[in-house]
């Protein structure tokens, strides 16, 4: 009697080869499903569904697809279009690019000549200094956007400066931040980068109140969580912008959101960003290109076209965990921007899944 009970439960375990079966079944082996008949050696030995899944993952997996930059179809393949394309290349590199560099340089000169005096001279008048610095940062971002001939359409109500609110957005490239910053001076939480970007981060972005983190340090998370909480409480601080994916994704998919942004106890305002690939693919494949190269690529393309949607603020519903909240917001953003959702953690780009995940499966 006892052994056939054991048999029944084990056959229901083995025959249900759907993924995430632990979500449907209570833990433990005492499960009474409808009787499935006797377990035969054949059923036990047939591991083909699991093997098929493994082979499917080897052949093509949804995680790698998130980070593939698909080159656009070449349209310059015949005798009429090719010279036109060559002319376009010359135009872009020899005329448009230098003009853009000029524009950008002018922008920087104006910015630095205003920012540095304001920063040092107005040390006593904090509020005034901060609001001027904010406008200056917004201005330099507009210059950046202009330097790629950025056409950005903003939809929805502009962010307002209120305490206890955070903004979350999907992440495609570092320029997401610039595009959003041009409209409102946000404080961002970012990975500290090396090189000239790092220099910019520690000087100018410091003034808007940015927070730094380090992906590779484990303890870092608690420190950052505390800093986030402090920032959100302050009424004077710039609204906080977080990219909960944690890494750049290729604008066709969204990966799992990290729950850190969602357990701060404030309203979350989702922002969806979608780039139009016709003119340039804005995805920054940080493995393949440095940021400088990426910027140069953008500056030598025709335009950067994107849509930004400011969506309705969401709060934690009663009885909802932060993870469910994060998923709900990801849903909202993905639907608005037309992105597909993928159940993987973006950080798997940098490390491998632990055996824990395998056990769960």
């Amino acid at each position, binding site marked *: 009697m006892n052994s056939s009970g054991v048999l029944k439960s*084990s056959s229901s375990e083995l025959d249900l080869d759907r993924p995430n079966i632990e979500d449907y079944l209570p833990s433990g082996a005492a499960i009474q499903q409808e009787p499935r008949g006797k377990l035969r050696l054949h059923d036990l030995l047939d591991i083909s569904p699991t093997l098929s899944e493994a082979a499917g993952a080897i052949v093509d997996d949804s995680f790698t697809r998130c980070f593939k930059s698909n080159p656009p179809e070449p349209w310059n393949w015949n005798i009429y279009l090719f010279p036109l394309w060559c002319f376009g290349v010359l135009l872009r590199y020899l005329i448009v690019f230098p003009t853009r560099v000029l524009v950008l340089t002018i922008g920087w000169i104006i910015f630095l000549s205003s920012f540095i005096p304001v920063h040092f001279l107005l040390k006593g008048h904090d509020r005034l200094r901060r609001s001027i610095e904010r406008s200056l940062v917004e201005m330099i971002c507009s210059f950046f956007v202009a330097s790629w001939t950025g056409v950005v359409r903003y939809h929805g109500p502009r962010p307002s400066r209120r305490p206890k609110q955070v903004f979350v957005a999907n992440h495609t490239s570092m320029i997401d931040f610039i595009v959003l910053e041009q409209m409102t001076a946000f404080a961002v939480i970012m990975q500290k980068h090396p090189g000239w970007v790092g220099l910019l981060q520690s000087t100018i972005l410091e003034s808007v109140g940015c927070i730094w983190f380090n992906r590779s340090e484990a303890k870092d998370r608690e420190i950052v969580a505390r800093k986030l909480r402090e920032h959100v409480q302050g009424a004077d601080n710039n609204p906080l912008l977080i990219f909960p994916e944690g890494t750049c994704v290729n604008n066709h998919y969204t990966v799992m959101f990290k729950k850190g942004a969602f357990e701060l106890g404030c309203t979350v305002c989702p922002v969806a960003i979608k780039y139009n690939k016709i003119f340039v693919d804005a995805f920054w494949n940080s493995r393949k290109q440095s940021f400088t190269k990426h910027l140069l690529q953008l500056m030598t393309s025709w335009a950067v076209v994107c849509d930004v949607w400011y969506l309705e603020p969401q709060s934690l519903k009663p009885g909802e965990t932060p993870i469910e909240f994060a998923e709900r917001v990801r849903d909202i953003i993905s639907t608005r921007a037309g992105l597909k959702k993928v159940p993987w953690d973006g950080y798997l780009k940098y490390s491998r899944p632990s055996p824990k*995940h395998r056990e769960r499966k």
Partner: protein
Amino acid sequence: MGNTSSMLTQYDIEEVQQHCKHAFTQQEIASLYQRFCHLDRNNCGFIPSDEFLSIPEFAVNPLSQSLLRMLDGFNFKEFIAFLSAFSPRSTLQHKIEFIFKVYDTDCNGKVSFDDMLTVLRDLTGQYMSEHQRKEVLAQVLEEAGYTKDSFLVLSDFMKILGNSDLKMEAEVPVD
């Protein structure tokens, strides 16, 4: 990456097709070559087994360790031969042979009670205790006419799994 199938000549594709006994079409082989190049990060024509663990979907599969044990590392021909069992064009016998190789951990042509227990352990993890697993396996073996100490060879596997229609396929994306 550019058009990588240009690195694979028509002759190469035909040779590989021959090697896997025409389990894949030429387009599928070209597509798999792109996939191989993508996985082969060091561009040395050889993927060590644990490179596959960087594919999250593969790493969370319960049988990933057994599969990696089967081969020491792949060059492209071995990659295709390995995957050929999952082509819709491969024979039932080929698929059963593959399953047999997964079970036969010490590659001696015989599957023992312990081999089957190992795979069962990988699949069920914490859901069954070791004792339950042994009991179930022993019971099922006896009902099929074997004992705990008998070794199963390939022909036994053919007999047991041969009458069913085994669905073991992975679709190769062809763009």
